């Protein structure tokens, strides 16, 4: 926060110094070169403002375009949970991300715990760290193909929600692991010492004290992971499939067309946009995709803003608690 203030202050100071004729700055502080340097500075500043305005305008117009097209396409029929209705994909998206978080959270938190408290600084940690890093930057189509190979081909099963959610979990585990590790490391050392002094074991300290203090940040990370999951498509194409056959009147998780059955195939909003492009045979496929895109970015925006707001609030509470 003080960065800008200090910068502005020193800038004023520098200008005063330059005005007083501080010699020997660059190659001779002759009046001509100083004016030209000032002119160049003005021009550069102007260019930055223009570029920034262009960039912001671009992003804003894209968002506005998607939302506008989505609003145009919205109709009760397309918003429904039957036929071409996007409601089916909306449900699939949320349900699939929920299922994947059930796997991501324990694995990610445990890995983060290991990295923060038990790993030390040996060879094995270096390997684990490299692996997490590698996992987090793999192209999602690669993870999708791995999921396709292991969860579909090798088990001789059909495209399913669980295969999709497990593959998505692979993508998000590094994020949660890193968030957990960072959060645990930022817990004050005195918490640890206090707990050990009270006779708790290291594991008890880690789970009862450090992990508890880290929960706010882990939750923020979870929301972020969910937001990322909503938009993933390349991972899901060949794991959870490109179609869904559901009946929203049947909530028995064991029946093959029940929305809750994790063994059915399911297309999410983003996969639907892709499949409409590649095999868009329906007359209104353009409208469906427009609507799906609008709902998708709304979902992503809400989660992204939500995680930021929550993070800020939890941080404030923690700060005031100290």
């Amino acid at each position, binding site marked *: 926060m003080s960065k800008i203030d200090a910068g502005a202050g020193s800038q004023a100071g520098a200008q005063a110094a330059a005005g007083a004729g501080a010699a020997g700055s660059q190659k001779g502080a002759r009046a001509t070169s100083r004016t030209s340097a000032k002119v160049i500075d003005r021009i550069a500043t102007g260019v930055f403002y223009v570029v920034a305005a262009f960039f912001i305008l671009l992003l804003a117009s894209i968002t506005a375009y998607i939302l506008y097209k989505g609003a145009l396409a919205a109709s009760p029929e397309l918003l429904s949970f039957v036929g071409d209705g996007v409601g089916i994909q909306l449900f699939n998206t949320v349900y699939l991300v929920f299922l994947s978080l059930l796997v991501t959270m324990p694995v990610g938190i445990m890995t983060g715990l290991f990295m923060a408290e038990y*790993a030390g600084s040996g060879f094995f940690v270096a390997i684990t760290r490299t692996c997490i890093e590698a996992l987090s930057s793999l192209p999602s189509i690669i993870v999708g193909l791995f999921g396709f190979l292991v969860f579909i081909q090798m088990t001789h099963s059909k495209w399913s929600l669980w295969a999709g959610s497990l593959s998505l979990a692979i993508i998000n585990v590094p994020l949660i692991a890193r968030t957990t590790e960072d959060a645990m490391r930022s817990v004050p050392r005195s918490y640890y010492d206090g707990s050990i002094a009270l006779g708790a074991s290291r594991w008890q300290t880690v789970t009862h004290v450090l992990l508890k203090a880290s929960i706010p940040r882990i939750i923020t990370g979870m929301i972020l992971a969910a937001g990322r999951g909503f938009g993933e498509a390349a991972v899901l194409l060949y794991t959870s499939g490109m179609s869904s056959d559901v009946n929203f009147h049947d909530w028995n998780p064991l029946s093959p067309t029940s929305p809750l059955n994790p063994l059915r195939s399911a297309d999410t909003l983003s996969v639907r946009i892709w499949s409409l492009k590649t095999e868009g045979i329906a007359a209104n496929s353009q409208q469906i995709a427009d609507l799906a895109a609008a709902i998708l970015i709304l979902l992503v925006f809400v989660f992204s803003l939500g995680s930021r707001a929550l993070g800020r609030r939890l941080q404030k509470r923690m700060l005031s608690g100290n």
Partner: protein
Amino acid sequence: MASRLRKWQTEYLGRTLVTAFGLFVVVLTLGILGFLGYKGSATFIDYGHSLTEFLISSKWSPGEAGQSGSIGSAVFIIGSLEVSSLALLLATPLSLAMAIFIAEVAPQRLSTTLRSVLEIFVGIPSVVYGWIGLAVLVPFIADLFHLNFGFSVLSAALVLALMICPTITSVATDSLAATPNEYREASYALGSTRWQMIWHVKLRAAIPGILTGVVLGLARAFGEALAVAMVIGQSNRFASSLLAPTNTLTAVITANMGNTTTGSEYNDVLWSMAALLLAISLLFILLIRVISRRGQAS
């Protein structure tokens, strides 16, 4: 005895558990490498093609159902490189300017807002970018250059550039903001203007971070499948110009993995391409590590 049991319950059990999870992540990563490497090797082992044919030849007519054909994938490899490097070329100057604006030029309130906006845009799904490209950019390019179709290298590069801009900007901004404040103060004290300070001091100090952002952007562009596949035109020949369609590794894998038979030559080549894609992605990760280690050392 009892105390040992208690110690086991309160300490060793948990330690074993988390270590197992750490190990699991390692096994998972190695598993991905192993499985894709194994699947990708079938082209060369079962069908006896040479690696040079795969990498250098552009003769593409892989066999279905037990037959054997030509598997030259140069078109896709060049296509991927072409599209992602062009995207990088377009995105880097813009992102860098934006990063400098946010970190150095903009008033603080604007700067904080812009940072949040950027982070939100990093999260926009790539399919949405592809969809916009398909609905707006492709017809626009066809109109502008009087083409029959706007599917082209240029369309794909523009879509990717738009997609990676927030990523590069975000990383570069953090890196600029992380340079010590003394640098700025010393520079101003020597009488330099803001632009001189940015150009001669800040940018130089932040270079490792900026490079990391650029490589991250390149990796994202290279590995992006759907957004590219939607606008590249998927024509299996070299692009004669920026306005011609071609194909990329990711696009050809995505489009054909589902409709080729498992174990056929066609299908196996796609797995080989996936393995190649994985290898190149790992190379990018390695590059980032080297850059950031250099940055720490200096």
